[in-house]
């Protein structure tokens, strides 16, 4: 069974002459252990694609199936459960809670969900991402790159089967960016999960198994 399957999914915003077809009819599957990159110019529909896959945006037509359950058939409540249990988001904007220290960002996940990483695994993750010294800091005291790394740790912490990352390396220098990509790839391979990364940075393509190009809402396999 594929982790993710899109069947003839499309998305249009607006009506009449203001109509924008942000995502043209797309079929797509992602398997376990895969790292997939989606590249493309600004406004081409990458975020639209990712938010539809994440169940945050409903497609105009078609079906999104995650681990066998079709998101379109689920209530918002159930979809939220799927997000909690199956998906790890790394968002374009920071997804940290402003009044929680780094350490407590993870505690919050413990409060709302089981089967997160063990303390030992978390420790390793901290080290891999170089954030072990940030534990007691609030997000407002972190640099953009540090925030991004904590956000990645947070997405991985809940052991999701699908990681969706929108420009995860945007605020990192290239060394860090490579490290983060290597880390995402390792996690994906070790835990046999699936990662979809939206990026502008074509140098990161080397870490990915398949690369798709988005152009005017049309998704096409590059390599």
């Amino acid at each position, binding site marked *: 069974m594929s982790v993710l399957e899109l069947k003839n999914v499309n998305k249009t915003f607006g009506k009449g002459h203001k109509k924008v077809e942000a995502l043209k009819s797309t079929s797509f599957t992602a398997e376990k252990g895969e790292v997939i990159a989606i590249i493309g110019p600004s406004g081409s529909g990458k975020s639209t694609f990712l938010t539809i896959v994440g169940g945050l945006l409903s497609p105009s037509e078609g079906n999104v199936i995650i681990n066998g359950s079709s998101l379109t058939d689920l209530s918002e409540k159930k979809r939220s459960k799927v997000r909690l249990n199956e998906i790890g988001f790394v968002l374009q904007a920071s997804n940290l809670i402003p009044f929680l220290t780094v350490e407590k960002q993870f505690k*919050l996940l413990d409060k709302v969900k089981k089967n997160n990483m063990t303390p030992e695994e978390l420790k390793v993750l901290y080290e891999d991402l170089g954030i072990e010294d940030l534990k007691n800091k609030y997000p407002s005291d972190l640099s953009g790159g540090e925030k991004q790394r904590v956000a990645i740790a947070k997405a991985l912490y809940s052991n999701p089967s699908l990681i969706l990352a929108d420009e995860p390396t945007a605020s990192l220098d290239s060394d860090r960016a490579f490290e983060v990509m290597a880390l995402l790839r390792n996690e994906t391979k070790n835990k046999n999960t699936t990662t979809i990364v939206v990026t502008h940075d074509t140098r990161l393509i080397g870490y990915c198994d398949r690369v798709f190009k988005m152009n005017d809402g049309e998704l096409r396999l590059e390599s």
Partner: protein
Amino acid sequence: MFLAWNEIKKNKLRFILIIGVLMLVSYLVFFLSGLATGLKDLNRESVDKWQADGIILTEESDKSLLQSSMNLDQVKEVNADESAVLGQISAIAREGDKKANIALFGIRKNEFLMPNVVEGKAFSKEKEVVASDALKEEGFKLGDTLELSSSEEKLKIVGFTNNARFNAAPVLYANLETFQEIKFGKGQNSNMEEQINAIVVRGNIKNSVSDKDLEVIEIETFIENLPGYTEQNLTLTFMIYFLFIISSVIVAIFLYVLTVQKISMFGLMKAQGISNLYLAKSVIAQTFILAFLGVAVGFILTLLTGQFLPAAVPVSFDIVTMLLYGIVLIVVAILGAVFSVLTIFKIDPLKAIGG
């Protein structure tokens, strides 16, 4: 609780301000309720002291003690578990340049209207009175000789009792003979039938009078008909209710603004799959913490202020009523929070993450 508490810890100043607002509101509510109780007591405490169930007045007196007048022997027609006769006049008492409005109660020493004596002794002969200790605040003391405005007679304070004000006037308790002399003048009483104002009864009051000129009234009804009592009470009760409405609106607006500020953060958590229920619980828990702290501090502050008020301010804090109002304030705040929770339910997680 986790989110609620951590947020309060991080943004201490903001939450202290909110607790401050809640504290001021509850302080105002508590204080007004204290004032209401105090004013009530001022009117009724001497009547409550009777621990009676009913009072017999003349039909034509229209429930006014002062207007009621009956013969002393009419007490024989009364059929109750316990009964006690009562004569009453109002006057101004004066000694030197001290003066005060008083109510004189003429009673029989062996009947249940006889008050407890907290200082000095009980009256034992004519012209001796046991006075309400409220007079002490006006400077009167044991052994003072009082001139009454309506009489030539002089009365001597031989004892004090507590909680004895009738329609805001401190009460002087004297025997019936003294009462007669004050009311009708010296020597007059010998050729007149002895007059009293009322008979106070305990027990089952339903069939206590057979005389059709007399009517028996429940004590609570009697109190409600004291001059000004109901009007005053209604005024304060309305003020308190309005305060509840206004404060609930203020608190609701506050919590709403607080929630609106955090919309994108709530959206973020919803995007991650944290349920509405969890967020709702956290907001409600936070409101509870804030309201509880605010009300508790307001409560303590009210009691402290009460300690330092001059005796002339008629506040008296009824802890049960205050606790009740406190709970109502907390509930009202939580209802305000429920209003905000509805906003959280409507947040679209997608908007928050700005995909």
